[in-house]
């Protein structure tokens, strides 16, 4: 599932630290970018590479909200529901997104294109309400703008 290229990137990441365990978060990011989420086999792979107990990899991975344990859509939408975004109408937008995608939070659309999650402040309060689609930020959202943004992610 994870190949030699991933192995090599994890090995290189570990060189940046005096202790290879510190490469755990980098390794989780690398594996998730490859697989879309972190299944048990990926955790086992990382545990072996970094010589860290599997239980510690699991314990660490499940602490962080951006590490996904379940398959996601091809594109992951993270929409902010913290106060600055809520003040400017985040909740009606989340309703719109849910209706438009036809799935609940954490579920994947039938075509596999999208899943969405609510997220805490993403530091785009100057463009609230805001959301991330994969690595891209989209701010000053309206229902129309959300529809247009989704079109850009085939």
């Amino acid at each position, binding site marked *: 599932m994870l190949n030699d290229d991933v192995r090599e990137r994890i090995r290189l990441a570990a060189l940046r630290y*005096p*202790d290879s365990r510190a490469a755990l978060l*980098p390794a989780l990011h690398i594996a998730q970018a490859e697989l879309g989420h972190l299944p048990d086999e990926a955790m086992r792979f990382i545990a072996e590479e970094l010589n860290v107990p599997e239980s510690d990899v699991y314990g660490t991975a499940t602490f*962080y909200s951006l590490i996904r344990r379940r398959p996601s859509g091809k594109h992951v939408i993270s929409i902010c529901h913290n106060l*600055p975004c*809520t*003040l400017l109408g985040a909740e009606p937008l989340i309703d719109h997104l849910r209706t438009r995608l036809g799935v609940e939070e*954490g579920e994947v659309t039938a075509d596999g294109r999208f899943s969405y999650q609510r997220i805490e402040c993403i*530091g785009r309060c100057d463009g609230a309400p805001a959301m991330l689609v994969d*690595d891209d930020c989209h701010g000053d959202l309206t229902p129309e703008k959300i529809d247009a943004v989704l079109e850009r992610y085939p």
Partner: protein
Amino acid sequence: MENMLLKRVKIPRAADIDVAVAHGAYSAVAAAYDMRPLDVIDEVKRSGLRGRGGAGFPTGAKWGFAAMDPKRPKYLICNADEGEPGTFKDRIILEGDPHLLIEGMIIAAYAVGAERGYIYLRGEYPAAAELLDGAIAQAYGKGLLGNNILGKGVTFELSVHRGAGAYICGEETSLIESLEGKRGQPRLRPPFPANAGAWGKPTVVNNVETLANVPSIIALGSDAYSKVGAEGSPGTKIFCVSGAVNRPGAYELPLGTTLRELIEASAGGIRAGRRLKAIIPGGASTPMLTAAQVDVKMDFNSLLAAGSMLGSGAVIVMDDTACMVHAAAVLVRFFEHESCGKCTPCREGTGWLHQVYSRILKGGARGGDIELLLNICGKMKGKCFCPLGEGAVQPVLSSIRLFRDEYERCIGKNGCSGASCKGMTHGKNYQMTSAESRAISNDQNSNTP
């Protein structure tokens, strides 16, 4: 006043090192290298610079503790885990002028004797991660990082360490745990990181904006630097204005500027036809202020005297459409989600607060719920392991103190009057995160016992 922190962010391609250098970047490195490390620390001490991440600890003193510790190696960590709701100032620097931060780190590392540095960047800033990686590679290319920097025999290695979504990692000992590859839970202090931080070694952890001040202190000298700002709060500050204003954004102004000037002159005033109602002046964990307090000066001491805190300088503005019960509930939901689970008062307290707010907003309030909220806060305040729990009670206590009538209306048999909730969604849209969202995220965020 000339900007010190945002001077290059409007310049196109300032993240490119040649552009940045043409506009003065890295000029303070050579000046610092001509000084002895202890003299650099003294200069920063004399400047009066206080940490910009929220706590306001004197930066020079922090450096001094680490520099004096005989243990080696030493580490310098930039705290770029900007997570305080309403805060986006560090992102503006990271994306707009990454070389300003790198320059500050090179100088800080020289002063404290650190040969290895990390920028702990929050996972929600993927664009900044890419930009920083590029900027660091360019700095290596110009001989500003690595071995024998500027031919002066100084070594400093720097890389980005990406977080993965955990507000608690903004607390410096949790950040260090996370850097070491563990769950981001706080450590008991003392020992402080300056003596026993990353891998047990002396470690300085400074916020992005704090480090971004360092080149100006060296270039201008501490005397000139400390002429800007207010008594006990020298320098400028990047204020992040969000919410019900015409021009939300990041504004660099001298510390001591009034909140009114910031909202009216910089952020263009309150949205058309609305009135200012309340302000959170320093991020989610600082107590709210009312419209009547809008002439307060935005500096460490003045905000403390006004019953709040400067915090991260994140100014969340609420107008008369905002329901204060809902506003407090949204922040409590946040703290409940981000509580790391290590200590009981915070783990249980944020959970209970959240449950009580949820039933109030869903129309199921019980008589005595205000007293219950105050009671829970009393069991948390001063009893939590780290500042997260302390922050979590602030929106509750301050909103009840300032807007108790609104709580009484929300809890009364007619429910929220609606007038104050116009424009805010309420009731049916309010989501429990504890049960609903946990179930969704499966075994993620398993920070409950």
